């Protein structure tokens, strides 16, 4: 065995230095672009977060070290936003995944117009977030919205519910919107996974006496678990960072009822022009999210290696 290995090593020709350097040359533009577009702003954000920097007071800018971070810990709105972010991610991603799984299982069955159904299911995902937010804002409108009208006609409610104006309901109303928007992503990914499971596995399971649930539990789920994990991690990152739908639907209101951490950072930096504090919130949130990102990178690396 050793002989074979050493022989094969000897067979590998030593590449000239130009050949060895070529991959790095080809990678350089992409790496440089990433450095300039991604890493430079990140470093800039970290530096800015160490300053008391309000955009309309450029001459009053001063270095405060970790002052903004200490202020953050005492800021009740930060903690409210952090709590909402946890609910936001914790509900939206599992709901999208669950709905996507059901949609994928249905779309994987044989039925007439299946191709059309598969195309139509992607529509919520394909629509721009701002359009979705505006559409759902009108659906929820207590004066003219269709949701209240429907519920009133079905006698489920007695008077119109201000879905987005009630602090106890607003966040969940937006979560429902984002669930509707994001489930096609899971549906398409899971559908691809389902189609890669060999039919023979189901046949073998059926011969062994496995029922529908057991087939799902022991054949389908293991077959798509890799996709569920990767898509779930990706979606956690996207949902966590998503502010457009919330911003258009409620602007964070009523009060702080739909503030999440990225939205709070946006409001502070973009509307109050407090760039120092705004970037401190953004950097803190990035650190919190870094764990998920690390998991995703580890997983991707493993997939590439295998």
């Amino acid at each position: 065995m050793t002989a074979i290995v050493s022989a094969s090593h000897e067979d590998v020709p030593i590449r000239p230095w130009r050949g060895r350097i070529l991959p790095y040359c080809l990678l350089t533009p992409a790496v440089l672009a990433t450095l300039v577009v991604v890493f430079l702003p990140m470093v800039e954000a970290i530096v800015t977060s160490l300053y008391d920097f309000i955009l309309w007071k450029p001459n009053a800018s001063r270095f405060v070290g970790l002052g903004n971070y200490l202020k953050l810990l005492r800021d009740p709105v930060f903690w409210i936003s952090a709590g909402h972010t946890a609910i936001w991610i914790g509900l939206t991603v599992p709901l999208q995944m669950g709905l996507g799984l059901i949609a994928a299982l249905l779309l994987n069955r044989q039925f007439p117009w299946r191709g059309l159904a598969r195309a139509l299911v992607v529509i919520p995902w394909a629509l721009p977030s701002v359009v979705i937010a505006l559409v759902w804002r009108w659906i929820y409108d207590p004066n003219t919205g269709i949701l209240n009208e429907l519920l009133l006609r079905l006698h489920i409610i007695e008077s119109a519910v201000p879905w987005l104006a009630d602090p106890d309901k607003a966040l969940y109303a937006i979560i429902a919107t984002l669930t509707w928007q994001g489930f096609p992503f899971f549906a398409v990914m899971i559908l691809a996974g389902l189609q890669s499971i060999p039919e023979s596995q189901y046949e073998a399971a059926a011969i062994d006496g496995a029922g529908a649930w057991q087939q799902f539990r022991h054949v389908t789920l293991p077959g798509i678990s890799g996709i569920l994990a990767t898509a779930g991690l990706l979606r956690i990152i996207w949902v966590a960072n998503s502010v457009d739908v919330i911003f258009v639907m409620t602007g964070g209101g009523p009060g702080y009822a739909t503030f999440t951490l990225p939205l709070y950072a946006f409001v502070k930096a973009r509307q109050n022009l407090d760039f120092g504090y705004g970037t401190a919130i953004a950097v803190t949130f990035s650190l919190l999210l870094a764990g998920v990102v690390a998991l995703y990178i580890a997983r991707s690396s493993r997939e590439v290696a295998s």
Partner: protein
Amino acid sequence: MRKPMTILLAVCAIAAGLASAGLAQAETVRFWYHFDNPENPMSTLIERFQASHPGIKIEAENIPWNSYYDNLYTSIVGGNAPDAAMVKLFAQPRLIEMGALEPIKARIDAWPGKTDLLDNLLSLNQGPAGAQYYLPVQYVVLYLYYRADMFAAANLQPPKTCDEFLSAAKALTKAPEVYGFGFRGGKGGWDQWGTFVFSQGARLGKGGLTTPEAIKANQWLIDLYRVHKIVPPSAPNDGFQEIISAFKSGKTAMTIHHIGSSADLVKALGDKVSAVPVPRCGPSAWTSYGDESLAIFSASKVKDAAWKWISFLAEGENNVQFNQATGQLTVTKSGAKGWKLHERRFVDATVASLPFAQVLPQTPETTEFVNTVWSTTMQRALTGQITAEQMMREIEALYD
């Protein structure tokens, strides 16, 4: 050989001279504005201006209102500010602090159009220490829109005081079909709030919001929503679109806005809509003077051309055409004489409101009050998360 070469050089020199003269002449003025009206007549105005000022090219950009000032401030800091723009008074202190504005007092004094400006507008727009940075281009005053048909059916008169206002609103409320008053609890509603709170003695600034009278006035307003329920349940998140569409659809019987929405309301409601000055809640009434001016930015390299453009927009017929798009009122005496763009009843309500129309104190904190603090505190007070007093204390903390 020498002669052709000399001719060639001469031709090149002339061509280069012409080219550089052309470059020097083609000054480009970048101008930012915000029009909600899709029938935007800016291109006609630009064509007319460019025809009469051949050396100047106008690049006008309609910036969405919701992010207008966010974009403006960041563009100034980023060194990419326009040469001139539409601006409001509440932004003036910040722009001055940023050193972004070009003083234009000398230019206004030398401008023939100055005498045609309506009285008092320049002094309302004045900057600190007598400096002048703003040239008025349009104005509005907030008043009370009411459904004349609903009032007539209920045998009610338009309210003159807050007590009358509350009685009328209660009488007209038939929830959930109709509510007495469409209150804008979302962004931009501070001017409606001001009508009820500032007129009862509250004042934006240190010590001005936490007096017992000011807190009582705020409580009175919150009670319209929480106790009397004469305001739609959606109020905490309602913005301009929501209050106007609710009024148009008959969901609300009164709301507060300015003449800019009259054309739209008349189109939907005809004679069923009318207007009167806002009710008086205390010793004196308070309503918001809605200004819009033009300014030149100090970083501009084409200030003379920018001045020619903004002064063109503030002159007689041009200003009338400008206001046709925004639905607001002209700032010129000549334009006001033959004013036919609005129904008389709305112009009358505006003119009757002018004597007590006011602007907010011009401090940098006011911008934050308008942009974020008012709406977040108001929404929390309306939904019972904080009290009327806590809301006032939070706003006042801005001015500490």
